[in-house]
């Protein structure tokens, strides 16, 4: 297939976005993440496609979701596509005027101020759905989107501390606009108004993942009960000592 005039190869079953990225072309894709299925919500990755057999007829598709086809001719930065990206960013800026990430991305496309009214319930959530999709992929599905349309928001069931959350922070870590707050204070971690206790290394006291997360991993993956008792640093030291003992034995036996 051809991307921006250059011929390139793709594997069957791949989506356009992966191929485009392999060519080093940078197009924004806010709701895309390797851990989850593509969603097609942000519309920023839209590209123009056509084929010779289409006689000049063109289509605009989200590259994150469009499977590669033999002979596809792709253009990633046509006027129409750029105009669309600008409108999407303009709209996002109306919704999240205070988000530095959106401001930066909009500026890349020449938009410094929104042409629209700032929406009444503006916060910095761009509703990309990454937090909920990742949480579901990991097997917890502790949060989801609530409501429909403009009033849609992300939150736990009944907006109460989510029973299924284990405090792994995957949602917060992958939010493109960093709007999910969490707090680490002492041995406690709070997110979604739920308080968790973190594991302390039994040797050095270093803080690790939450006890709930550890328990979930033990159950889901069949690991031993006290598997997470020691931190990575102490484990490295222990490994060195174990290997030391083996080497010492080798020395004595060999020498």
């Amino acid at each position: 297939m051809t991307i921006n005039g250059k011929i390139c190869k793709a594997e069957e079953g791949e989506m356009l976005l992966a191929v485009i990225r392999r060519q080093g072309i940078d197009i924004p894709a806010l709701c895309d993440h390797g851990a989850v299925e593509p969603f097609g919500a942000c519309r920023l990755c839209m590209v123009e496609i056509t084929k010779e057999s289409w006689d000049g007829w063109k289509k605009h598709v989200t590259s994150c979701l469009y499977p590669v086809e033999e002979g596809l001719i792709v253009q990633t930065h046509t006027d129409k596509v750029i105009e669309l990206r600008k409108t999407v960013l303009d709209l996002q800026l109306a919704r999240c005027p205070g988000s530095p990430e959106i401001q930066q991305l909009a500026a890349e496309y020449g938009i410094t101020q929104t042409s629209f009214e700032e929406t009444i319930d503006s916060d910095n959530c761009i509703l990309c759905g990454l937090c909920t999709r990742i949480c579901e992929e990991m097997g917890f599905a502790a949060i989801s989107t609530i409501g429909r349309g403009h009033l849609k928001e992300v939150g736990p069931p009944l907006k109460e501390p989510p029973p299924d959350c284990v405090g792994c922070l995957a949602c917060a870590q992958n939010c493109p606009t960093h709007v999910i707050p969490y707090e680490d204070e002492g041995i406690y971690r709070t997110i979604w108004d739920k308080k968790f206790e973190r594991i302390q290394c039994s040797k050095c006291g270093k803080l690790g993942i939450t006890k709930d997360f550890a328990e979930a991993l033990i159950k889901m993956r069949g690991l031993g009960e006290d598997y997470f008792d020691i931190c990575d640093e102490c484990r490295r030291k222990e490994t060195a000592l174990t290997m030391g003992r083996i080497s010492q034995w080798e020395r004595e036996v060999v020498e």
Partner: protein
Amino acid sequence: MDARLIVKPNLCIGCRTCELACAFAHSENGKPGRSRIYPLDGGFKEMWTPVVCLQCEEAACVKSCLVNALRRNPDTGAIELHQDICVKCGACEAACPFGCTLHDTQHDKYVKCDLCKGDPVCAHFCPTKALVYEPIKVAKARKAG
């Protein structure tokens, strides 16, 4: 080739060249990354041993990853942590019994030894050949014989 990094602690002199080489081989934007290999005190006289990912056959890191971001590369033999899939939950760091999955706090990502895509720099620079990158077949033959 399917190969493994063979560690020979008895040859390690604790010079930490491997650690340095690893950090620079994985630098980003001019800043060195976090080293994936650490020569540490072996507990005996003049005993150091490099602690590095052993690319376990039944790896705990792979088992603990809920999004399947850790996968074996059949060409190099390494278990690679795919950054585009990783959700930064830290389960792998907590799970590795040898402490070889690490949190690179500078670049805010989790990292592990990827055998430098088939030509590990630590083995390349080790002055005493305490680190050797050996095809599995050769390693198995050596062990048997």
